[in-house]
């Protein structure tokens, strides 16, 4: 055996054998506490803190096992707000009440086609982008997120590389097998191998059948308005956290309660009179928006699917900022009225921070 490629494959086989063998190691004072582990796996550490964690985990079998287990749980069980059982009826009641009100208004209010409409009673939200003359229609849409994982498959035994196949190709093949196995229940890495034979695929499905949260009662009216976009979201069962955020369709209230914005699917509306009337603001993107924050009456941050981050510093014109990843964003936080500092959370639980109005981002 003389070729470097064959020897590299042998090294990989040895690594699988030696590192994959259950090893023992006790808990030490240096072992990571749960919060540090959580912050690390959620991308919330940086700098020297991150280096210290990596240095310890590199040689600590126990922390490796905990971190590996946590990573698998996070991949298997999405982070989302569960349904509040006591208010489940509201999910039905609010749309029904809205529909009944609409029918009553249809009969009660005389129709006058020539009369101008107020902004608040305009067309459904889903039509807002189409009526927006400033929307960037020539902008190619950002690639959609990857499709959902394939059905669970058992963890595959180490395979021998086919002749003529590069190690990288073999790795891609193995990675596919691993991705297929993502929905398998997680357990401690080494121990999982011992227990793998006892897994029950039918029970794994129970995890996959996780249903998203219903809208909170306070956001139910907005959720009713956002119905078209919600229908699309229901098809995307892989992102309940994002879905829960989008269904809420929150109003973003500035420190002056008279000035506020609201997200309606892919549109943004602005009110300067406490929500009495709303004006649709052109934002130039077609991705669904999920959250926003307004630390002042002129500064507002919005985030949405596919890494969309928008910022206005005059309350009217929006700039799309470059985000380091094309990933779904679920939250944005800031108290910086200058519009420079913000913390953005991704739907899969990671956090990114900018201190220069979105020019650069760092994972935390």
């Amino acid at each position, binding site marked *: *055996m003389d070729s470097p490629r064959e020897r590299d494959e042998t090294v*990989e086989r040895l690594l699988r054998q030696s590192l994959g063998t259950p090893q023992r190691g006790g808990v030490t004072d240096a072992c990571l506490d749960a*919060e540090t582990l959580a*912050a690390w796996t959620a991308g919330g550490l940086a700098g020297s803190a991150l280096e210290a964690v990596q240095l310890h985990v590199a040689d600590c079998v126990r922390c490796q*096992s905990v971190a590996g*287990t946590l990573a698998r749980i996070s991949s298997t069980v999405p982070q989302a707000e569960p349904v509040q059982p006591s208010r489940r009826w509201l999910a039905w009641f609010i749309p029904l009440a809205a529909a009944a009100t609409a029918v009553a208004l249809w009969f009660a209010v005389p129709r006058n086609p020539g009369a101008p409409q107020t902004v608040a009673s305009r067309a459904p939200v889903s039509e807002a982008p189409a009526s927006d003359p400033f929307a960037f229609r020539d902008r190619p849409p950002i690639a959609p997120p990857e499709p959902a994982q394939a059905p669970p498959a058992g963890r595959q035994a180490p395979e021998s590389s086919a002749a003529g196949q590069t190690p990288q190709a073999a790795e891609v093949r193995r990675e596919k097998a691993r991705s297929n196995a993502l929905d398998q*229940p997680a357990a401690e890495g080494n121990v999982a191998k011992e227990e793998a034979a006892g897994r029950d695929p039918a029970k794994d499905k129970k995890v996959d059948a996780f249903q998203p949260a219903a809208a909170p009662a306070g956001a139910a009216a907005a959720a009713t308005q956002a119905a078209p976009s919600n229908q699309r979201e229901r098809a995307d069962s892989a992102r309940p956290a994002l879905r829960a955020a989008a269904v809420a369709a929150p109003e973003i209230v500035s420190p002056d309660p008279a000035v506020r914005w609201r997200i309606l699917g892919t549109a943004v509306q602005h009110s300067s009179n406490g929500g009495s009337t709303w004006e649709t603001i052109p934002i130039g993107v077609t991705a669904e928006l999920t959250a926003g924050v307004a630390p002042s009456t002129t500064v507002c941050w919005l985030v949405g699917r596919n890494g969309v981050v928008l910022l206005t510093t005059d309350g009217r014109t929006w700039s799309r900022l470059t985000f380091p990843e094309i990933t779904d964003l679920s939250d944005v936080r800031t108290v910086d009225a200058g519009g420079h500092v913000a913390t953005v959370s991704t739907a899969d639980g990671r956090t990114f921070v900018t201190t220069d109005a979105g020019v650069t981002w760092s994972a935390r």
Partner: protein
Amino acid sequence: MRIDANLVDRLYRQARAGRWRVPEDRFARALEASAERALGDDGAARDVERYLTSLHLEDLALACACAQGDEQAWEHFVLVQRPLLYRAADALDPGGGARDLADSLYADLFGVGEHAGERQSLFRYFHGRSSLTTWLRAVLAQRHVDRLRTHRRLDALPEEESAGALRATAAAVEPERNRYVQLIRRALTGAVARLDARERLRLACYYAQELTLAQTGRMLGESEATSSRQLARTRSTLRTAIEHQLKAEGLSRTEIGECFASVSEDAGPLDLRLMLEDEAAADAPRKKTAVDRSG
């Protein structure tokens, strides 16, 4: 560490701590404890502010309220977190074996013991650096792993006689191959030990924990593609190091090739105890030779 009162007030409102009736001074103490833990006593004001604004403030406020025994907060916490915790437990053990761990967490979170007249809740270890959900999962993962490791420690080791017999049989069948296997494994162990921590962590995530490339990349703060490239580079580095080590052991080019060939097929799981014994046995004459040479 004292935090500016205006900042505390702003964060208090941002955390909506008032809805759980958390006193502002208690919330301020939680912020101070969190900042001290992360930055030490002498964090610069700007760093402290940046750190505090990056916290999961609403979760921190909820944890404060639960720790002080606010019924509504506790009810909200259980309503929101219990299903998520059970799902995580079921992901750990589909047979429901981890649910008791999830249940036992609630007792610790509620705080069964008291210290200096104050209930000792597990929430005191939560400082808002991650979300409550992720923190609870981490606590659950820790307890699950520790329980599994404890059970494994209690498992009976194989009989000495049978292990010795197996080793003797294997050694008798292919003595030369066994020697090559031991040489290359020892060379690998040394080469891995000489890698930097980040490379060892990447290997551990991918080979020991069997995480996907995406998960491995996330642990290391790099992309999936970077993880893949770095793993390939590390394998190549290890191969070169092994070749040099075997050459230093006095093996010819042909013998080095045979070393690699001896482990090219799956040799089955390794018994680390046997490996360590073999290494100790092999080290003894080497040390003696080194002493002789130095003498």
